[in-house]
């Protein structure tokens, strides 16, 4: 399982998991689950188009997902966000299906583009993936404070000079780049699961931002490592395991929250009288 070919899989998946854990934290914070699903789908079109022209797939991925990000940001200003996102997805996919019909792609290639392929990452692709990964993480840390501010309190942030429009664009582009590096490894459809499940689960266990991010990364790593191992041992697709384990960790998080709430809710009489400050705060 740890032989030469598989080594690429372990390394690339780990990089993807770390980035996904960090970026996913913001996706969950901003409620951008839909966009997180949309951009990889768009990326799929890019990969298909790239192979049509004979260009490197990663370049196609990058171009299309960034294009998608910018379009969503632009359309989102004039129309509802969710409608804009939905339409961008479908147009991208429509183009993707067109490109596919024009190429001589056959089923297994499409399949691995959508659902991932453990052995699909060659050593030469490892470097670009790592580089993009580093760029993504660096970007997140550079814009960390304004992004947090704008995500949690957009109006106040705007008043202090943090343009929410700009933050949205920056954020979506970061997600687009994350998608680019992750699609070859876990596939367009399942990168989404890796982006939201670990972060959503982490949020159930802690309230503190950095802790949540760290926990999200750990859970993401755990998810991909188990998924690779299981996929290798059972010969079943890696995407299946990523999706199921993701749902499992989320369920675990929810269960934890519910259990804790049940323990705390013992009937108690409210404080009678009390200070005026207390009266104000109930």
């Amino acid at each position, binding site marked *: 399982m740890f032989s030469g070919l598989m080594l690429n899989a372990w390394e690339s998946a780990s990089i993807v998991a770390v980035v996904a854990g960090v970026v996913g934290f913001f996706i969950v914070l901003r409620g951008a689950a839909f966009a997180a699903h949309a951009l990889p789908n768009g990326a799929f079109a890019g990969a298909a188009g790239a192979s049509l022209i004979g260009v490197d797939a990663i370049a196609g991925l990058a171009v299309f997902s960034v294009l998608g990000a910018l379009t969503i940001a632009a359309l989102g200003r004039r129309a*509802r966000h969710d409608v804009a996102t939905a339409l961008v997805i479908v147009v991208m996919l429509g183009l993707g299906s*067109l490109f596919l019909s024009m190429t001589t792609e056959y089923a297994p290639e*499409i399949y691995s583009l959508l659902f991932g392929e453990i052995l699909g990452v060659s050593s030469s692709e490892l470097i670009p993936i790592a580089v993009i990964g580093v760029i993504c993480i660096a970007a997140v840390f550079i814009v960390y404070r304004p992004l947090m501010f704008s995500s949690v309190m957009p109006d106040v942030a705007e008043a202090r000079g943090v343009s929410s429009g700009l933050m949205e664009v920056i954020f979506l582009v970061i997600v687009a780049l994350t998608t680019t590096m992750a699609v070859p490894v876990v596939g367009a459809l399942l990168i989404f699961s890796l982006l939201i499940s670990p972060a959503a689960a982490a949020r159930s266990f802690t309230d503190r931002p950095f802790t949540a991010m760290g926990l999200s990364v750990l859970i993401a790593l755990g998810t991909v490592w188990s998924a690779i191992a299981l996929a290798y041992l059972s010969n079943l697709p890696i995407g299946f395991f990523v999706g199921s384990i993701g749902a499992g960790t989320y369920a675990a998080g929810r269960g934890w929250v519910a259990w804790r709430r049940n323990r705390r809710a013992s009937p108690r009489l409210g404080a009678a009288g009390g200070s005026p400050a207390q009266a104000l705060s109930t």
Partner: protein
Amino acid sequence: MTAFLSPIFEPGFFSNLPVQTALLVGGVVAVVSGIVGTFTVMRGQSFAGHSLADIGTAGGSASFLLGISPLFGFVAMNLMAAGVMEWIGIRRPRGRDLATGIVLGAALGLAALFLYLDATVSSTTGATVNVLFGSIFTLPSSLVPVIVIFSVVAAGIVLAMYRPLILSSVSADLAKAQGVPVRLVGIGYLVALAVAVSLSAMTIGAILSTALLIGPAATALRITNRPGRAAVIAAAIGVAATWLGVLLAYDSYYWFPSRGGWPVSFFVVTLIFLIYVGSQLRFRRRPRAERSSTATQAA
């Protein structure tokens, strides 16, 4: 007259059986998607609508293994997923997109599994393509009555709940205070959505059924102020785009690169998108920041 029309309608268009099936089925499905989609956009549940299409692929792919028609696989899977979403709590805005996403992730994982098994165990070739991109030209005509019945059911549910659905979409509290069974209405709507999405996923594919659901509805909501009219306009746009898409796909057989024509889904989606963008430009609205009530200004 015929000489004028022939470049548009390539030979044999109207007499071709698959084409006739495609037009009929496509038309019916477009109408249902338009009606259900209007409420979907109104309720801000576009993500759920899109997710159900992808989730359905798990069911659709499983059906190849079970030897049943993909339509039933789609519908069954979607009904289950709608139930789970409702249970997790799809009604709270922020939390629900997350819940939808998790269900989607799990279902996609399942889809991965089933498609893989399709190819290896039951050697169903092209399952991926079929399920994801639709098979409007290859639908067996025996399926047509089933599709029509499902469409009527889905549209019927929504139309029967018309007023309570609108009211509870505007404000759940208001609806509850008036005696509307909000939870029931929500579930009924999700069922209609699940069925409608399954139908369009069959025809233009799981990935692209969202276009038929959201696009015409969003366009209609730009044009008119009234829900009833919006539903009608959405249905009309959907039908137009679908029929035109079928026509173009058929014609494209003769275009470059002639390898069996361009996919229907591509045409339909592009048309819907163009119509939507066109309506954005034509029905100009002041951007959000500037919007203030003209009435108070005039007062």
